[in-house]
């Protein structure tokens, strides 16, 4: 990797990565007496694919929840676009341009794929409840415009054939894709993916990888993801943060991380005397 500075860097495959988008400064998160995250700092840059990895219980999901603003850390600061972030409501997070998917799929099972993805655009809708209920004039025009955006996402993720299918009838791999579609419909600047490939077979994983890369390439979306599958992470991401027992034990390009002794120990274990 080229030398990194505040201006950004260029990746091995020639993508330009911008300046810092989000910075975590000395984050510590406690649940009662349990320290989930201890004094962690790292940054996420414009346009990069940033992975957070670590063994079970390392605090990865907690970290993602701090980024998304769902958890407020007891110590430390979160800086977003050069501003220190105050505690926020979920809709405020969404309005800032952050969208996410969940480890355990959180879709409306009884609704169609299309309706599920439309919910991703709720925060962008301007007309009020009454206007939408009457569905007349501005509300109607607005829905058409939103539907157009949603159709672009459907086309992008190649799920045209299940547009009208209720989500409950879909297999797991497709549900994951619909969740990604809903997050994309919000046109996020920063996309958080919580184990996007968990429970998938090889083919579904390959598809998902391609979609993640295409999202990053096509829309320039910055992506932060948590993943268990080391192979996937190393292929996909530009930089990787490694966590273990709530602490950061590595940070750098996939190659740097792969050769980091602490990381190897955490993953493979060390012999105790």
């Amino acid at each position: 990797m080229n030398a990194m500075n505040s201006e950004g860097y260029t990746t091995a495959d020639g993508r330009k990565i911008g300046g810092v988008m989000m910075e975590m400064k000395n984050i510590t998160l406690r649940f009662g007496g349990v320290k989930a995250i201890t004094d962690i700092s790292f940054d996420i840059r414009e346009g990069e694919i940033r992975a957070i990895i670590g063994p079970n219980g390392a605090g990865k999901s907690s970290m993602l929840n701090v980024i998304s603003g769902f958890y407020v850390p007891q110590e430390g600061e979160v800086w977003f676009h050069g501003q220190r972030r105050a505690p926020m409501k979920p809709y405020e997070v969404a309005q800032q341009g952050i969208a996410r998917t969940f480890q355990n799929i959180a879709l409306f099972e009884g609704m169609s794929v299309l309706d599920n993805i439309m919910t991703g655009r709720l925060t962008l809708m301007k007309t009020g409840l009454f206007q939408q209920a009457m569905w007349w004039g501005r509300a109607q025009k607005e829905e058409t415009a939103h539907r157009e955006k949603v159709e672009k996402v459907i086309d992008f993720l190649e799920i045209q054939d299940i547009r009208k299918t209720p989500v409950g009838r879909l297999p797991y791999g497709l549900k994951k894709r619909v969740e990604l579609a809903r997050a994309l419909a919000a046109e996020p600047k920063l996309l958080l993916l919580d184990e996007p490939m968990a429970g998938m077979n090889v083919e579904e994983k390959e598809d998902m990888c391609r979609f993640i890369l295409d999202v990053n390439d096509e829309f320039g979306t910055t992506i932060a993801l948590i993943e268990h599958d080391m192979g996937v992470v190393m292929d996909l991401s530009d930089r990787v943060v490694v966590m273990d027992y709530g602490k950061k034990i590595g940070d750098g390009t996939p190659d740097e991380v792969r050769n980091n002794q602490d990381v190897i120990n955490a993953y493979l274990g060390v012999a105790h005397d």
Partner: protein
Amino acid sequence: MAATDGEVGHPTSIPALLARNARVYAAQPAWREKEFGIWQVWTWAEGAAEIRAIALGLMALGLERGDHVAVIGRNRPALYWSMIAAQMCGAVPVPLYQDATGDEMTYVLDHCGARFVVCGDQEQADKVIEVQERLHHIDQVVYVDKRGMRKYDHSRMNALADVVAEGKAAHNRFDAELDARIAELNYDSTCVMLYTSGTTGKPKGVVLSNRNIIETSKSSAGFDKLRAGDDVLAYLPMAWVGDFIFSVGQAIWTGFCVNCPESAATMMTDLREIGPTYFFAPPRVFEGQLTQVMIRMEDAGRVKKAMFDHYMKVARRVGPDILDGKQVSLGDRLAYWIGDKLVYGPLKNTLGFSRVRVGYTAGEAIGPEIFDFYRSLGINLKQLYGQTEASVFITQQPDGQVRSDTVGVPSPGVEVRIAENGEVFYRGPGTFVAYYKNAESTASTKDAEGWVATGDAGFFEEKTGHLRIIDRAKDVGKMADGRLFAPKYVENKLKFYPSILEAVVFGNGRDRCTAFINIDLTAVGNWAERNNIAYSSYQELAGHPRVYDMIKAHVEEVNRSVAEDPMLAGCQIHRFLILHKELDADDGEMTRTRKVRRKVIEDKFADLIAALYDGRDSVYTETEVTYEDGRKGAIKATLKLMDVAVAPDASRRVAA
């Protein structure tokens, strides 16, 4: 501008016909494509403008007369336009099968020496780039869908949208030259080159002239009274001659509208939305739809099921006669009318056949039950017999003379004769010019008088003058005791059972016939579910004793039916096995158009065939399979072999 030939009295090239349509049908829809959930429409005038812009852009990229332009991708207006644009430039479009593997594609691209390749999307572009490393004559790659293409080296690669923009910008520079090139086209210039799927050996490039395509389109459109305002769904491979005739030739001759589905997976939904008036499908599509309907009716409530059964009985009895305009009693007409309101109408609507005026099936034999099912609903489904070398049409069925076991009478302008050995020969205005760079094959297929050997064995029925096809001429053989061996005849009978997807019969030069069976996972899986049979894989289901029993019953029924024909009674199946994997084009066992490659199967499964003849009860085997991404793996299985009762053959004593 139009190159009208005084002799024929109409434009004599596809681009000239396009110019005519842009004038005559200017504001009528010519192409539709579903994209972003909505049907996008282009009128003839708009489409013609797009095509001209593409042609100008291709000229700006340096496309020369006589160059070959390969086109690869799913059916999209942009790809049809690219083919016509290539013709305008004096080049020859060569559509390729989009699911072809790298090797197959390399052979064809090498053989035609393509300088330009137009790809649908990244998937196709990747394949071409891989081929480009070996074939240096590929100069320019153009792609339609921009997605994922940003990072590619664009020094010799362009998005079609950019080519169009460049063409529009440069029109002052190229207008005159383009008009000159269009004016040069005549009835004898090459219209398109299509590669045959090749059940044997390497694919051959069939050169078809404007005369072939336009004459064929003219007479076949007249035969079925096609007209502007008709709608077709373009969903079959663009590399297949049928699609070129329907979606380019006939469409541009009559001015009807070509509709492209959103994706392969949405084809059925799109079919329903468009409701084509003119529809073509290979038998397997009709079979698949019928299977779906039957599966859903099995799960329907008792009242609905009873209503469906009752009115389908009425339809089977009087439907075909009503369709053919024969005399039917008033009571039956009334019953059919009620049935139409309650069952047939809604069913046709669900299937997308509400508006079908003319439907065709060809390529394989269609089961009589399936054929009659659609006709009894009032869908005018007919059969035709054709091949690439004939620009499709050799024989076809006129309205009112439709049967499932014939392929109709010779198409207008086509002469057909049967050789002494039973092989079918034809000649006509659609007869191809030559095989590209293969004078030897051309000479052995087409004689000096223009007669072309089809390679199929058949005969004309004396009473009706309809042609009946028995089998591939080279597959028709003799058994050890000299009796006729026609495998396809038996295989087709087997395949008419919904639970049998594919069958391969052996017996040439042997004393008795045996068969491989492929089960249909949808039908058998559903049957298993209803009968509480648990299974975890295709292989396990295929080997299940009760599945074997069911297939055995089918085979015995077929044997009884085969025994009725004294000429073919020797082809009864004595022993069979159910294969542990589906025969697949990726493994080379079938062609891309899903025709069985006998030789490959005989070599690959030699151990299984041996077991069918040596009396063992089971056989262990390992088979190599190729996954969709090209990787290889092996599956192991122990297969059961099962004996079948044979009906007594009246003409001769059964050997062994």
